[in-house]
């Protein structure tokens, strides 16, 4: 039998998607279903003085007083209300919920909010409130700087980024006995489950959350679905009928989360020979109006802020700040693209200051097996920062092109980056994820709460289980994530679905296989009846993590990447066209090479958008360009040619050697592109590098 791992087997969900049969949230219709609508604040800061409406009995109306449990979207701090009571902290904050059977009637419903505006805070550096601060210290900064021949400083900024999953957020809540079921476009069914239990309290006998086919997530359906599911559930319980709540693009862009804007300051000491001897880094994230996931985004951001480099003396101080804007949240990369943009542009500036080749500078300082990170973690044999760097330089022809293009309108730049796999520190231990493999009449079925959001979860998990069981891939099916059926495998985030959940599944499959004593699953099912094995995450025993001091093994391991970006600058319009990106990526083992390549290509292009095009324009705390006409993501004509190279330095703790993959590709493109622009003589330290900003840089340099 051919093994499945390492081969590009057919996607489990391919044909449904290619024929239009796959059912997304908005495609589902339930009998007697109502449509929901959300009335939102219009001021960024203030008090809700009153709500006026004259809605007839055909409407279902819900405000915060109708919440049977606690009025919070349960997550980390439980500070975000599901519906505004008095205090308004951001524009587009939900205040009132309406439902009606007829959408046009719903649309024409008149509701007036009486809002008393107060003075908002928009600048995170002026904000009096920090949601979270983190300090990482290694060695003694002063001792490091004392050895330095040169100190280079710089401030780097990144903007907000919209997820622009092509399917906006949406759910349907359906009363079910004395309980409630929510079907929807969600990444983390058990997050939604927990939030609904808190919100609904004793009003329901049970809560069930079912993922529908999901049209993209990228983090944007990590925490926000808990909000929209709560709204739909409240309406459905009130109306005792199913309620569909689907955002249109504008509402999705105005109300849901975005990538945290960042300000990162570096002060770095180097010796003449290019050795990094001291790194002092300050990270400021704009958290928005509620805590939501900002503490963990800050965590990942700071943990990646020194880049994949060795340095004896490091201090990284981070803070996530309150502002009166809609909460910023999870977005592929989770803080790491912001901080790695800063460090990688800074590295090119250090090379310039030293008069040194930026590749030599990186090669000299890149982490090697046995090196320690800023948190003191000793890296294993799978640390391949130098290998990806060298492969990318070779494959792209970087040196030749850099030389040949000097003085032309073509530029070339590079970035070296890493991404920790799975939850930070002891996070995975706390999650205690479980996954099940059970026999069926034709093979086995996988039961996990890991969601398929396009990245290939079903397919990749089935490959791992097939090989661990020693059965054909076709005999493995994957259950729909339904909290009534599947165990809690943790959220589908943090590049953990393959390495962590895949690893649990591998162990479950191996144990099930051992119990079959040589029988095929189908035969065993006939003879023994239903049989299921559930395994729980076991943390490798060597992992030590001190959450208070931020010391120890921040992640079980890291994946590494190197991007070389080639651009052409139009000096008439200051438009930059990305010509080519060479993306060398080491994820330990590509379980499914075509899926892995697709993740890298897609993440790279998202990174191109982050770097060059995507700009959220805020006016008085509200999104002023909440349309795809004015918020531009890359089209087919904006993407560079992509050359994806997969390297495999296996991580012994991952299934078949695999590490995390999903987020890594978006860490590298922005600094590589900006360094390419830099090679044209333009000192750019903020993204998006829109033409307006490039023109300013050009004026400043001339």
């Amino acid at each position, binding site marked *: 039998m051919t093994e499945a791992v390492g081969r590009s087997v057919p996607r489990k969900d391919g044909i449904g998607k290619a024929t239009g049969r796959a059912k997304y949230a908005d495609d589902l219709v339930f009998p007697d279903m109502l449509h929901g609508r959300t009335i939102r604040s219009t001021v960024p800061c203030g008090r809700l003085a009153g709500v006026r409406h004259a809605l007839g009995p055909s409407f279902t109306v819900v405000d915060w007083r109708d919440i049977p449990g606690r009025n919070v979207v349960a997550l980390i701090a439980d500070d975000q209300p599901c519906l505004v009571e008095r205090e308004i902290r951001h524009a587009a904050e939900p205040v009132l919920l309406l439902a009606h059977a007829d959408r046009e009637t719903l649309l024409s419903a008149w509701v007036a909010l009486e809002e008393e505006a107060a003075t908002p805070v928009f600048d995170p550096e002026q904000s009096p409130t920090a949601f979270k601060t983190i300090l990482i210290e290694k060695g003694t900064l002063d001792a490091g700087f004392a050895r330095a021949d040169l100190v280079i400083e710089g401030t780097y900024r990144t903007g907000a980024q919209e997820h622009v999953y092509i399917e906006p957020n949406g759910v349907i809540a359906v009363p079910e006995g004395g309980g409630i079921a929510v079907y929807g476009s969600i990444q983390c069914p058990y997050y939604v489950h927990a939030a609904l239990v808190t919100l609904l309290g004793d009003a329901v006998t049970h809560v069930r959350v079912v993922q529908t086919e999901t049209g993209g997530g990228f983090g944007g359906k990590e925490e926000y679905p808990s909000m929209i599911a709560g709204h739909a559930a409240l309406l459905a319980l009130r109306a005792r009928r199913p309620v569909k709540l689907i955002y249109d693009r504008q509402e999705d862009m105005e109300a849901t989360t975005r990538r945290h804007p960042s300000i990162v300051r570096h002060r770095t000491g180097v010796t003449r020979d290019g050795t990094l001897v001291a790194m002092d880094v300050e990270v400021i994230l704009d958290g928005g109006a509620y805590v939501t996931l900002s503490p963990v985004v800050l965590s990942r951001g700071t943990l990646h802020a020194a880049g994949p480099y060795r340095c004896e003396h490091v201090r990284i101080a981070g803070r996530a700040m309150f502002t009166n804007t809609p909460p910023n949240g999870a977005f592929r990369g989770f803080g790491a693209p912001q901080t790695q943009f800063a460090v990688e542009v800074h590295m090119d500036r250090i090379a310039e200051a030293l008069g040194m080749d930026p590749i030599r500078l990186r090669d000299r300082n890149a982490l090697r097996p046995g090196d320690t990170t800023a948190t003191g973690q000793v890296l294993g044999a799978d640390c391949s920062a130098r290998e990806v760097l060298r492969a990318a330089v070779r494959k792209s022809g970087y040196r030749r092109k850099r030389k040949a293009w000097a003085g032309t309108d073509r530029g070339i730049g590079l970035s070296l980056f890493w991404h920790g796999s799975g939850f930070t520190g002891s996070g995975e231990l706390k999650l205690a994820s479980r996954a099940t493999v059970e026999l069926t009449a034709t093979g086995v079925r996988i039961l996990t709460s890991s969601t398929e959001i396009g990245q290939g979860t079903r397919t990749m998990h089935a490959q791992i289980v097939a090989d661990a069981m020693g059965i054909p891939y076709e005999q493995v099916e994957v259950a729909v994530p339904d909290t009534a059926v599947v165990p809690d495998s943790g959220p589908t985030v943090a590049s953990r679905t393959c390495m962590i959940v895949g690893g649990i599944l591998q162990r479950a499959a191996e144990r099930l296989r051992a119990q079959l004593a040589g029988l095929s699953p189908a035969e065993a099912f006939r003879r023994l009846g239903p049989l299921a094995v559930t395994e729980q995450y076991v943390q490798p025993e060597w992992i030590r993590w001190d959450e208070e001091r931020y010391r120890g093994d921040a992640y079980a391991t890291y994946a590494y990447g190197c991007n070389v970006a080639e651009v052409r600058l139009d000096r008439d319009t200051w438009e930059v066209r990305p010509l080519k990106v060479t993306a060398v990526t080491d994820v330990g083992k590509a379980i499914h090479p075509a*899926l892995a390549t697709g993740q890298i290509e897609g993440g790279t292009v998202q990174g191109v958008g982050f770097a060059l095009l995507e700009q959220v324009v805020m006016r008085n705390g509200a999104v002023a360009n909440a349309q795809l006409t004015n918020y531009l993501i890359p*089209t*087919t004509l904006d993407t560079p040619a992509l050359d994806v190279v997969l390297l495999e330095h296996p991580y012994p703790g991952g299934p078949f050697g695999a590490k995390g993959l999903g987020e890594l590709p978006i860490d590298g493109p922005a600094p590589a592109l900006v360094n390419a622009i830099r090679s044209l003589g333009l000192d750019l330290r903020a993204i998006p590098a829109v033409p307006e900003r490039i023109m300013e840089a050009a004026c400043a340099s001339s």
Partner: protein
Amino acid sequence: MRFLLNGVEVTPEAPPMARLLDVLREQCGLTGTKEGCGEGECGACTVLIDGEAVCSCLVPAAQVEGAEVTTIEGLGDDHPLAHAFMDEVGAQCGICTPGMILTATTLGPRPSLARIREGLAGNLCRCTGYEAIYRAVRKAT
């Protein structure tokens, strides 16, 4: 109103200014046509009217009176593009895929990469970076 939908005559009842998108999804029950933006930017709602790709969110239903409308469902299970999208992993989350495939059917035989890129510029995909889509279209056409 009366028109030919995937080769079959249909007579849905809809206001003349209803969006063709809604008529297809709600009156005709064909949910393979997706809504991504409601402003003709993303192309997820692409259908063919008399063989030409259009955004069905921007078409008044009355205008397809007497016309031939093709949706993803009309291509059936064995369309070469559907299979190529499967084989080349041209679909990740899949929400853009029906529109992408329908536009691709209008690009003619053996389109060059440049032609594919220009032709698909009105179909946004946020997952793939488009490369696998190019591979699929080149394989199928």
